[in-house]
């Protein structure tokens, strides 16, 4: 039943410096590939520009988390003290809002932080224990250490293995390999 036991995920090129990687990424985009991805051992801001990454959704998710935490936290205290179990202590107002601010603040920060972290992980599709790139030995040994990689992915309409390999040779990749997904 399983016809394609093994298919190509993409073609991976290795570079020694982030400048070469950024140059290659820009060239790949100019050549018309859309589904390309860079891999670096530390964040390289120039690469985000080279890949044309736009603003991401993490700040929005964080804002929503913070609003839920803050409004929910305040409303919860309000509800407890005004509806659920109102207690008249010396004629003070039931909704004594200044006293609710510290907890509201803490819950705002908590909601925003949880949203930032779990939102970032979810948008990144992590945790993801298996990835086809982990089949490439040099990627495993160097991608999180000292080398810079660019992958032209097979899901790109324009993709074929030969073109991609020729492209990487053209931009002086030190190593080129075809990534199999099996």
């Amino acid at each position: 039943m399983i016809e394609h036991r093994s298919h190509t995920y993409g073609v991976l090129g290795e570079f020694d410096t982030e400048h070469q990687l950024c140059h290659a990424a820009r060239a790949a985009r100019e050549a018309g590939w859309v589904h390309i991805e860079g891999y670096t051992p530390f964040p390289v801001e120039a690469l985000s520009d080279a890949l044309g990454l736009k603003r991401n959704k993490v700040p929005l998710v964080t804002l929503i988390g913070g609003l839920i935490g803050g409004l929910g936290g305040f409303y919860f205290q309000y509800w407890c003290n005004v509806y659920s179990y109102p207690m008249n202590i010396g004629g003070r107002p039931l909704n004594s809002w200044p006293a609710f601010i510290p907890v509201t603040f803490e819950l705002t920060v908590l909601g925003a932080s949880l949203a930032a972290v779990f939102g970032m992980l979810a948008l990144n599709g992590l945790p993801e224990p298996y990835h086809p790139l982990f089949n490439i030995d040099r990627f495993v040994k160097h991608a999180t250490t000292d080398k810079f990689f660019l992958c032209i992915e097979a899901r790109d309409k324009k993709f074929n293995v030969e073109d991609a390999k020729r492209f990487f040779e053209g931009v002086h990749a030190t190593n080129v390999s075809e990534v199999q997904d099996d």
Partner: protein
Amino acid sequence: MSANQPPVNSPEIRRLPRVLEPGHDYATVTDKIASIVLTRPISLGWLAGFGLAFSVVMMLNVAVAWLIIKGVGIWSINIPVGWGFAIVNFVWWIGIGHAGTLISAILFLLNQKWRTSINRFAEAMTLFAVACAGLFPLIHTGRPWMAYYMFPYPSTMGIWPQFRSPLIWDVFAVSTYGTVSLLFWFVGLIPDLATLRDHAIGKPKQIIYGMLALGWRGSARHWHRYQSAYLLLAGLATPLVLSVHTVVSFDFAIAIVPGWHTTIFPPYFVAGAIYSGFAMVLTIAIPLRAAYGLQDFITMRHLENMAKVMLATGLIVAYGYFFEFFLSLYSGQKFDVFLVHQRLHGPYNYYYFALILCNILTPQLLWFQKVRTNVAVLFVMSLVINTGMWLERFVIVVISLARDFMPSAWGRYSATVWDYATFVGTLGLFTMLLFLFVRVLPAISIAEMRELVHQTSEEHE
């Protein structure tokens, strides 16, 4: 990380010692830091230190078990001094944690490159300090198994916690602080865990680090979102860290006890927290860099900068002490005036003088560069400041409570062996966790060090 760095060739920059010694590339920083965890055999010194700390933790277990069997009566708390060591230690530990967040969040926002090599273990220190701090109010409740009463849960009694009470604010502040510190620390660790996964030898290590790394592979899109999340977390942790010790100071300032009921408390508590926290970072950093040969990464520049932060926050604390007295005297309230007299001439006045010596007089030596660059002196001074900050909390809690309003209600306080066993026990717990930490996780952020290598090499081009 890209914004306004001063021009590299300005004389000001050249004068400063480096934040990273030359001759390192991406691979060497990775190997140097990862090898401590992955390949370095367990040394006799580590084993001895860990063993000692572990036996102290056993003492903590005994102390806490006896406390649970007998109740808080085994401590010397009484009426009027109902808070005693438990709250002194709680405030002290929480304060120590603050430097970790300050280094990782505030210095990150301020774009201070020198934070890079110290932020990881400073964050670990925060977590462990918060764990030690959290223990004290928990066991101080007397029935720790009912501590969940402090959280709002729909109980059959239909009542809710008193949200107008600073003690409940404290529950929320400290638990939020613990959670956010853990998240911040873990997010910072993800790329390093991936590095460890890729360098680990043997299946068990690969699987454990692999699970923790969540499949991180350094993709540009991932980094893009990761950096947003990290920046946002730093921005969120900054007001949080200020709020936590403010709320802790509210535990005191909201009450009407003379010596507590003062508006100087929140800023003075926050400054004191950062002061003691930096002292603790030095206490840990100095032996750590010596034991694992990390002098290239934790340079004199780091130690000197931390000494400067201690000097600055120490002066704020001194200002706080001054204004505490000034406001008491200026108020004309006889109980407040009496408190000043108590501190200077009362039964615990030697604690107060020791506090002034440790926290105000000794740190003045930090004005001299010779002192700031002398590792041994700095180490001793960090211990002195930590002692001083503990004394400060003792003075605030015990002296104020022991003699408040009516002489007939006055009392005395002297700690029992169980008080000391619990306090020393948490020191052991803290040390043990640090010993474990340096063996199983990278004590310096590898990914950020690579970034630093990248930046310093760009500057030299």
